[in-house]
């Protein structure tokens, strides 16, 4: 089974004089002395390349098993070069790259100065294709079976989009909450102002009706009594206040139910964390779970604090001017803390994954 790394056909000629001349197939002249390889940013592709490296190492081991005494010059340098180039690339960090010259020096050093330009040419092309085009330009070979298929590429792209979309959604949700909070304040102020003015007008009409009734009483010389209409309007106003108090209580009750629901969810999360901790053996893992346990307790305590500052209703049954804002602020603040911790944990997970990949590349 062979693979031809088409994009660097003609490299041999350049290697001979170590200065660039030719050609990537079908792409016009390309100065290969300027070609550099970087570690792919897509973690899915990196994982597949790590698998590919393992596959190459297994192939070498298989060949040596068949003929343990084969002389190095008879060995498949192409395969060994691919291992070396791929290993070097996967060992690169962000911002680092490896040039053709560096790759040549590396394989020379590994193979006691023996160098086969033809086989290096193909090996470099194959690896470059894997890195830059997920192996799409290679003829034959086992390829990057998962990544190479359209389905797998779509999955990898979708995973990347999902990650980006999730971050964007979290940000959008945060922005939406902030905007809604601001808009609620404006709407509430407007509603309060309009309500106040409407009742003031009712008050003026009531005064006028009261005065009219008093005048009528004076004219007739009868005993002054409250206007029956004013008394009815007073009842309507009392009813309005009762209704406002009821609506305020309903809001507080809903907020209470929501925060209680969160508290219950956090309690359930705490149980899962305890179970996870019980199954942890490594000290470093236990510390991570302990820290998580602390965070869960803090959020839970925060929910108790939120409950204590539930929206206030005054004696007249009105919701305080800032309404749900203090609670929403508190929830937002806690959510942001958790988002930050989520990001930190994700970075650490990625670092440990990178470390394990490094160990695997060393053959551990």
């Amino acid at each position: 089974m062979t693979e031809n790394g088409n994009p660097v056909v003609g490299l041999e000629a350049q290697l001979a004089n170590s200065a660039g001349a030719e050609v990537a197939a079908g792409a016009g002249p390309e100065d290969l002395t300027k070609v550099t390889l970087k570690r792919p940013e897509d973690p899915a592709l990196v994982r597949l390349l790590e698998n590919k490296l393992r596959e190459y190492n297994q192939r070498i081991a298989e060949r040596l098993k068949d003929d343990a005494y084969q002389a190095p010059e008879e060995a498949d340098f192409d395969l060994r070069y691919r291992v070396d180039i791929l290993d070097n690339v996967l060992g690169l960090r962000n911002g680092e790259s490896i040039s053709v010259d560096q790759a040549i020096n590396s394989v020379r050093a590994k193979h006691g100065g023996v160098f086969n330009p033809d086989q290096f040419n193909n090996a470099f092309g194959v690896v470059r294709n894997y890195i830059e085009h997920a192996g799409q330009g290679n003829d034959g070979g086992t390829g990057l079976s998962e990544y190479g298929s359209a389905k797998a590429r779509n999955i990898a792209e979708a995973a990347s989009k999902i990650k980006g979309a999730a971050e964007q959604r979290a940000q959008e949700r945060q922005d939406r909450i902030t905007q809604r909070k601001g808009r609620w304040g404006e709407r509430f102020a407007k509603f309060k102002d309009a309500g106040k003015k409407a009742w003031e007008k009712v008050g003026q009409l009531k005064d006028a009706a009261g005065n009219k009734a008093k005048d009528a009483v004076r004219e007739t010389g009868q005993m002054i009594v409250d206007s029956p209409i004013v008394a009815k309007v007073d009842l309507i106003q009392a009813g309005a206040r009762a209704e406002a108090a009821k609506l305020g209580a309903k809001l507080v009750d809903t907020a209470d139910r929501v925060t209680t629901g969160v508290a219950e969810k956090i309690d359930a999360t705490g149980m899962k964390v305890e179970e996870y901790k019980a199954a942890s053996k490594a000290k470093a893992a236990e510390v991570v779970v302990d820290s998580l346990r602390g965070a869960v307790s803090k959020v839970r305590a925060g929910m108790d604090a939120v409950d204590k500052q539930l929206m206030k209703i005054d004696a007249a049954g009105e919701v305080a001017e800032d309404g749900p804002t203090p609670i929403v602020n508190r929830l937002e603040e806690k959510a942001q803390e958790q988002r930050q911790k989520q990001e930190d944990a994700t970075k650490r997970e990625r670092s440990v994954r990178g470390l394990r990949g490094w160990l695997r590349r060393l053959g551990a």
Partner: protein
Amino acid sequence: MQLTKTQLFEEMRNQGLDEETITNLMTDFADLPEELSQTDLERVDSVLAEVQGAHGFAAFTHGEMADALENAADKILDAADDYIEESAKSTVNHVQLAQSMLE
């Protein structure tokens, strides 16, 4: 290639692992020799797999808590919007009733 403990911890820093995790891993690997055998490396990988899993679990759990808190904020704002709407309707009804009696 023979790997040493020193190289392992250097690579932890190179991979951007935080000092706290590195210090804790030092405890886990305290009894390992400087020159790491294949068996030692298997143990290292097994511990790292557990630590990786713990960080993954932590990331998931923090995310779940953040979601729950944000959802709660959204629901409370929904209820607060409903409160304004219902209060406005109630005020209008009561004011109109009062005005109709007075005018």
